[in-house]
């Protein structure tokens, strides 16, 4: 559980001469790419005249710092030195951003002035909350914690702005559940937030336990990325066969809604067996035990060494989840990633693809045809015809 966004910078040379570098800048969960092109000639590269190129999202994030970094870049003598400069700037930027965060009225390049009323108000709030519930505290945020009856710890992070407590704090938790931001009867913010988090924990505690068991006992794709209130899990049953289960938030022990993913030939027998056995789902058994009964075989556990995606990687980019760049750039701290959702219909092939990857390939393939927002082409593996809608490709959520 990362309480503050972590930043890291890695540079990789793009050629053997070291005249151009790709940098991977990680801020929290978001990756940005920068490029550094040296000046001079390929034979005599020079740091003077070097150029820093970044994605628009990163340029926006760095705003005025971009010019400073560009100036520093030309004074650097190695990529290591520039890495340190960039890390330094990002670190400071992130600290400041956490303070000011989404309050768009606050300008990014002004340091906040904190009044005495800020600390007085904060102390008063924390006394009221009870110091046992205070997990972490620094000069602009506080992390409150609740331990549920199973010993699991749940936290709420409150980020205070300079005009706190006159202005409300911003509340965050790991579950993606929006917390009410309102004063209690005594005019305090944090007690209300903690009470609301308690209600949420009480309400969802059971489904979280079930999901945790599922993540631990079955081969769940991208289990780490599912810390939110996402109630669905994609479970690997065999090579190229997935079962997607969506659990009921209040009655997670009941039969979840289900969907099999894979080629028709592979999933048809599983689906009919599941259908025939579904009355055997027991609310007293674990999900894993129930799956074994309904499927007629023990589902595989996560392999320790090999690829973690169960052969469900995209046949073009070889990755399982594809970060959707546009969503990352526009979303406020929210990250969506695409999983392969277009399957080749040929039962001997059944390759999965990310829709955007397939569309990129069709656009590069002169034999593919486009009409009315649908692009028609052939599976790169078996030449079975596949179509993909170009309309939904880059905007999974609006």
């Amino acid at each position, binding site marked *: 559980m990362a309480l503050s966004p972590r930043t890291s910078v890695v540079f990789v040379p793009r050629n053997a001469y070291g005249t151009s570098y790709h940098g*991977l800048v990680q801020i929290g969960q978001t990756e940005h790419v920068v490029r550094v092109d040296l000046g001079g000639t390929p034979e005599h590269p020079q740091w003077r005249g070097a150029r820093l190129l970044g994605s628009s999202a990163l340029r926006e994030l760095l705003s005025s710092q971009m010019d400073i970094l560009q100036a520093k870049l030309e004074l650097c003598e190695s990529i290591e030195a520039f890495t340190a400069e960039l890390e330094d700037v990002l670190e400071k930027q992130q600290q400041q951003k956490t303070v000011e965060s989404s309050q768009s009225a606050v300008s990014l390049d002004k340091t906040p002035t904190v009044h005495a009323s800020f600390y007085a108000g904060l102390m008063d709030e924390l006394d009221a909350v009870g110091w046992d519930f205070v997990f972490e505290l620094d000069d602009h945020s506080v992390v409150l914690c609740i331990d549920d009856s199973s010993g699991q710890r749940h936290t709420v992070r409150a980020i205070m702005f300079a005009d706190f407590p006159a202005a409300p704090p911003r509340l965050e938790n790991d579950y993606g559940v929006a917390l009410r931001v309102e004063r209690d009867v005594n005019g305090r913010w944090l007690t209300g937030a903690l009470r609301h988090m308690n209600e949420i924990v009480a309400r969802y505690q059971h489904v979280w336990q079930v999901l945790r068991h599922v993540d631990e006992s079955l081969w769940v794709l991208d289990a780490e990325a599912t810390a939110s209130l996402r109630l669905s899990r994609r479970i690997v049953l065999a090579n190229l066969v997935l079962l997607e289960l969506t659990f009921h938030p209040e009655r997670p022990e009941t039969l979840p809604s289900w969907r099999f993913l894979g080629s028709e030939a592979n999933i048809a027998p599983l689906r009919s067996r599941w259908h025939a056995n579904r009355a055997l789902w027991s609310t007293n058994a674990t999900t894993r035990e129930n799956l074994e009964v309904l499927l007629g075989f023990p589902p595989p556990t996560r392999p320790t060494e090999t690829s973690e995606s169960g052969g469900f990687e995209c046949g073009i980019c070889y990755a399982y989840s594809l970060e959707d760049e546009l969503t990352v750039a526009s979303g406020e701290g929210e990250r969506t990633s695409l999983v392969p959702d277009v399957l080749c219909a040929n039962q001997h092939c059944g390759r999965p693809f990310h829709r955007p990857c397939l569309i990129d390939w069709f656009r590069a393939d002169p034999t593919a045809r486009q009409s009315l927002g649908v692009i028609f082409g052939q599976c*790169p593996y078996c030449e079975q015809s596949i179509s993909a809608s170009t309309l939904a490709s880059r905007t999974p959520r609006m």
Partner: protein
Amino acid sequence: MDAVSRRLLKELQDLQRDRASSAATSELEELAPMDDADLLSWKATMRGPEGSPYEGGRFHLTIQVPSNYPLQPPKIEFVTRVCHPNVRFATGEICLDILKTAWSPAWTLRSTCLAIALLLNHPEPSSPLNVDAANLLRCGDQLGYESLVRMYTRIYAMQ
């Protein structure tokens, strides 16, 4: 990390995993990035297929991966001089459909190199880059073709 590097890293991992099991049987002796810092330039070494006039030779190739790989094919050329109907003798350029129009993202660097190894043993004289070699084959002079190839293999590929 960009999509190309991610895919190439996966290919590299698969190569390292398969190396132990397939090195002895494969014509592909080596396939690796030129240096660890640049995943877009690779080098390969292949052995002349057994029973072919290339037997005993070791052939080096360079591979340039385009930045939109695998939407575009890699650019692969022989560095070692090869006498072959589908290889331009002077430049090492290879005429093979999958390197041009028949490319598909289903190919990997490894499978593409294996396809080239296959081409060594199975020339396609209908689309020649080396007219002399193709003519010998087309005229049915298998013996003449093989001794020509053997000579060049000895000169250039057996040091």
